[in-house]
């Protein structure tokens, strides 16, 4: 066995589906703490009571964009409506549809034959491969460790009123939501729907866009120019692109507008006397927050830029990748190559690059 995936979440799972185009389950080792690839994501989606995906028809774990979830929904419902909605960029699969799709893929792809339920703490480069913490040496390794943990602003840590949006919670009568992204916007609506009075605390006005980043950054149209940026420019661009955002649309604006008119929603600069403070502040950022990646950088003196490990356009680590071996990143840690790397399309992007490397290696 020469190919290993470190991380059994959705990014690792998507990479696995891509590798299965060429490899059998017995040829792929997946190291992770949970055999259910959607386990972590499911908990977070349930916590914010998310019902619909932000992603569109191609937000799935299959290696090819077709058939997408709109096509499958049309076939299942025997209705052209999902396809037409997708044609108009109005299709968003439900969370249940997405999770059913993951479950179906998990069953039929041989995933469980490849998963080894163990945590890899360290990756060391050896001659012609990588040694994974005593679990063997592999020629091609993709690291998809996921988000390094929930982010709670320092000034709010220890406050008994505080709960992170991605932890299970109900709503008090007065709720302050900290943050300006999709989770925050979802929590505004949830809390308003529960009858609460809501205060939005945010450092900046949220960006309104349909997907996590502008659409051009999902293809070479925008990526080629992005890849040509120098480290300082690319860091600045990434910070701008990754600013909190949520989609445009009446479904978001009308409830908030109504509540504001009724005096039940307002924006403030800081947390005040609400009974509950929900931190919709996402995840801790940067490779230093992830012990596996931090050790990898330190052990091999890898090039970094601010919070990011510097990777090639195909999300491989240049210092540890050559014609005989591959070390690639996927998920949020691959943002240096693909700004929306923590999306399903981003996971596919990294997976495609990894598969190309595996294919091109004659000794795999």
């Amino acid at each position, binding site marked *: 066995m020469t190919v290993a995936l470190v991380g059994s979440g959705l990014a690792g799972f998507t990479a696995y589906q891509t590798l299965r185009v060429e490899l059998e389950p017995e040829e792929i080792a997946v190291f992770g703490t949970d055999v259910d690839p959607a386990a972590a994501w499911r908990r977070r989606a349930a916590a914010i009571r998310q019902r619909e995906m932000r992603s569109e028809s191609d937000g799935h774990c299959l290696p090819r964009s077709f058939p997408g979830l709109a096509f499958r929904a049309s076939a299942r419902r025997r209705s052209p409506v999902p396809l037409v909605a997708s*044609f108009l960029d109005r299709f968003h699969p439900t969370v249940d549809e997405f999770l059913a799709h993951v479950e179906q893929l998990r069953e039929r792809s041989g995933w469980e034959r490849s998963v080894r339920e163990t945590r890899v703490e360290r990756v060391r480069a050896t001659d012609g491969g990588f040694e994974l913490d005593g679990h063997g040496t592999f020629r091609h390794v993709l690291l998809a460790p996921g988000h390094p943990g929930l982010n709670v602003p320092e000034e709010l840590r220890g406050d008994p009123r505080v709960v992170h949006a991605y932890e299970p919670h109900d709503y008090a009568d007065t709720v302050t939501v900290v943050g300006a992204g999709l989770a925050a916007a979802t929590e505004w609506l949830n809390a308003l729907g529960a009858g609460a009075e809501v205060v939005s605390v945010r450092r900046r006005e949220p960006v309104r866009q349909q997907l996590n980043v502008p659409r051009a950054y999902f293809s070479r149209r925008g990526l080629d120019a992005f890849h040509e940026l120098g480290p300082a420019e690319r860091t600045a661009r990434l910070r701008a692109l990754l600013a909190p955002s949520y989609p445009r649309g009446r479904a978001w604006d009308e409830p908030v507008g109504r509540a504001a008119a009724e005096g039940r929603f307002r924006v403030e600069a800081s947390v005040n006397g609400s009974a509950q403070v929900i931190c919709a502040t996402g995840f801790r950022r940067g490779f230093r927050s992830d012990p596996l990646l931090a050790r990898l950088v330190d052990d091999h003196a890898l090039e970094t830029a601010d919070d990011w490990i510097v990777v090639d356009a195909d999300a491989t680590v240049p210092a540890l990748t050559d014609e005989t071996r591959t070390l690639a990143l996927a998920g949020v840690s691959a943002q240096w190559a693909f700004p929306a790397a923590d999306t399903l399309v981003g996971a596919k992007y990294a997976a495609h690059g990894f598969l190309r490397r595996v294919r091109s290696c004659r000794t795999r």
Partner: protein
Amino acid sequence: MSYTLRGRIESRLAALLPLLAAACVLALALHRWWPVEAAALMLGVGLALDAQAYHRLLPYQPGWVAVPLGALELALLVLLMRWAGIAAPVEPAVALFVAGWLLAQLLGHAGFPLLRLGYAEDGGELGRVGAAAAVGVGVLLAAAGGTAYALRPPVVHLSAGVHRGPLVIARREVLVGDPGAIVRGGIVVRADGVTIKNVSVVGGDYGVVVDGYDGTKLDRVSVSGAKLDGIHVRFATVMIKDCSVDMLGNAYGQGIDISYTMDHGMNMIEGCNLVGGMEGIATHSSMSDIAHNTITHTTLRGIAMTEMSMGTITQNEVRNVTGVGIVCNDHSMCEVERNTVVGTRPSPVSRGVGFLASYLSEADLKHNELGANPVPVAVLSNSILRRPGRS
């Protein structure tokens, strides 16, 4: 999808390759070049728009935008085909475009993503398949162009001077008259695909006769002194451009008579100058476009579309004729637009009518100048006349 320029071009070439191949097969089956010409023009329009407009204006292209862009490309294609003189039947040509568009959608949304893992993230680029498609399109177009070149009809030059007729053309050829070339006694076409250019015909029973052969083109042909009709067409198709027919002194002949060609397709008579004869242009059981012609001094009718004929009569000038300027007669269906009919004189059987619809015919009149006639418009024998605008 956010296409790169290369992705747009490769996707378009790969999507059009099967259509171009089908057009070549269709051309072979029909013995007509229009499918290949239309497909090549479709490709040219698409590539030009890709490079000059779409790439700059559409950094991201939602799926639905393909519909208005397709309509735009179809409109440009139709205009360019007219401008280039590609004689394609409208419905099959539109069907070919729609088939190509649907195929492109199918391949863009399903085929190419299945073929290439990273199709969307590569901005529509197809890698080796794209390069192969470009080569394939080039090879097909070169093969079609080479075949067309090899099959060009021979060009025969008719030298200046008077040539004794009747001149019989029994093979597909282009007959080009040098300045001063005259055929005395008429020309008889006895092959498909004959072109006659710059030739004057004097005398003969008919000036030019085409009976039973398709695809004849008469370009700048002049006829005078014919005993019966100037240009006589039966069971055939013709395109007549910029002709001159002088029938003065011939009380019973027609300048141009196209009859019983309904099964053969459209005829076109454009830019001709006809003087004298009983009728200037007459069609019987035929489909014809009659446009930009000048007809004067006929003794019965200027233009007659009759006996279950169909077609358009547009922007013609009919002056000083006797009887009727333009007639749509005997179960015919005529679209009559922007014609000028003036100075029609009464005859023993007519009071001098600008436009006449008679005997169960249907005519649509739009924007014609018919006022300067004793009777501007007449409708007889259960015919239907529709006049939404000023007529």
